[in-house]
């Protein structure tokens, strides 16, 4: 379980004006589930992720991972970035070997991500979707208990994204890790998540939490059922209301 307790964060802008980003912010994220954090741009999603990852230190407040203080970045929770974060000078295999010594596990994940045939290639030689898959399995192949994903599909086209979502779901189910997905895509979050947290900004607060009913889980291919549409509309209006 990840707990954020009384997080306060503010910074001074150009005019020396103090801007409060988080004020007594609290959040609990359940173990072994996928939690999506949604909100419009500028709502503080990425800042929140950076705080959880330990890249940004809040002015006050604590981040706990399974009850233990997690204030510096570490192996227990790793980040899969929106931008390219693969080591360009390492082959596909080397990119995985630097985070894990378990060669069987690496093999297994390469297979799951359909990258076995490319293990000797450099990232530059792969397609955008393949690179993203590699970046994702690099997170999952490590021993991290928690994976933080910052808009991992932001730069991909629709078809690539659709295929990737299905593969990601397979990987998620196979590994049983705690996952936080930062996104602004409602369909994507309904498809992958067990729970959705909607944020509003300045200071960042939680507007609403949705638990995704199991019957709507992972059904992006038939997003036309009444229940799905209702949930989607409800999420949409909550996001709209929050950005007013």
């Amino acid at each position: 379980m990840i707990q954020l307790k009384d997080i306060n964060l503010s910074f001074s802008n150009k005019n020396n004006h103090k801007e409060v980003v988080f004020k007594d912010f609290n959040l609990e994220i359940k173990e072994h589930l996928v939690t999506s954090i949604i909100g419009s741009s500028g709502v503080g999603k990425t800042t929140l992720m950076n705080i959880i990852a330990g890249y940004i230190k809040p002015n006050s407040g604590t981040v706990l991972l399974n009850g233990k203080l997690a204030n510096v970045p570490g192996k227990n929770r790793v980040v899969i970035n929106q931008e390219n974060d693969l080591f360009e000078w390492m082959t596909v295999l080397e990119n995985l070997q630097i985070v894990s010594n378990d060669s069987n596990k690496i093999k297994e994940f390469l297979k799951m991500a359909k990258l076995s045939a490319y293990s000797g290639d450099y990232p530059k030689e792969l397609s955008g979707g393949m690179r993203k898959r590699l970046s994702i399995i690099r997170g999952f192949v490590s021993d991290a208990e928690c994976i933080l994903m910052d808009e991992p599909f932001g730069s991909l086209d629709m078809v690539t994204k659709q295929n990737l979502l299905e593969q990601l779901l397979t990987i998620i189910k196979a590994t049983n890790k705690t996952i936080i997905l930062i996104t602004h895509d409602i369909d994507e979050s309904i498809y992958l998540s067990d729970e959705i947290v909607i944020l509003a900004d300045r200071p960042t607060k939680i507007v609403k939490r949705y638990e995704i009913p199991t019957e709507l889980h992972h059904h992006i291919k038939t997003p036309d059922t009444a229940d799905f549409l209702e949930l989607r509309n409800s999420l949409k209006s909550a996001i709209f209301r929050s950005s007013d």
Partner: protein
Amino acid sequence: MSNILKNKIIKQLLVVLFFLFTWQIISTLNQKFNSFVSSPTEVAITIFDGFTKGSLIIDVLASLKRVTVGFSIACLVAIPLALLLTYYKNLSIYVEPIIELLRPIPPIAWIPIAILFFGLGDNSAYFVVFIGSFFPIFINSYHGASSLPIIYQNVCKSFEIKGFVYIQKIIFYYSLPFIFTGAKIGLGMAWMSVIAAELMGAQEGLGYFIQMNRLLLRTDNVIAGMLLIGVIGLFLNHLIVWIRKLIIPWENDST
């Protein structure tokens, strides 16, 4: 692709041939010019004779040896130092001013000191070559290593990649293209420095060869020496480009 390359080489060869041809024509037509600048054919014969009958090969090898030793020591010192200073940022505060102070001093200015400390032999030449090539290699490596993008730094923090593995597998490999740029400039500087050092104090080497023949008024030999310096410099430059392509396969287009 190879056709474009062939075309390029042919064009470049044509320019060289045109230059040599013009030089030959002027030398043949203008006796006054020819009296103090030898013609290309004369120079070619001189070089051929120098290699077959004379001791030119000894001079070339002597210069190459000095460049190789001095340049290698410079690489061995500059690259690890640059990587370490990037990793231990606190140290760089102390080292940076020293380097910035020494950097503007041209290698030639070090020659008297080098001779004083190391005598007239190879050692002083090694030192001057080292000084000449150290700074470009160090500055470029340091610049490369310290420009490691935040995203990689964050990934390394997340996966706890640190210590020697971080220096070797992340900083070093990331900096390799920069290191090679430095090495390319450094090798050019090394070659210039060795000639300068040999002009002032040496018993053999291409610089010594030019200096001796200047005193003997053998212009053909002087020009032969100059041409050899140019050709070997060009060859060394290509050698670095070739090694770079071999060592950095993830970088498709190198300059």
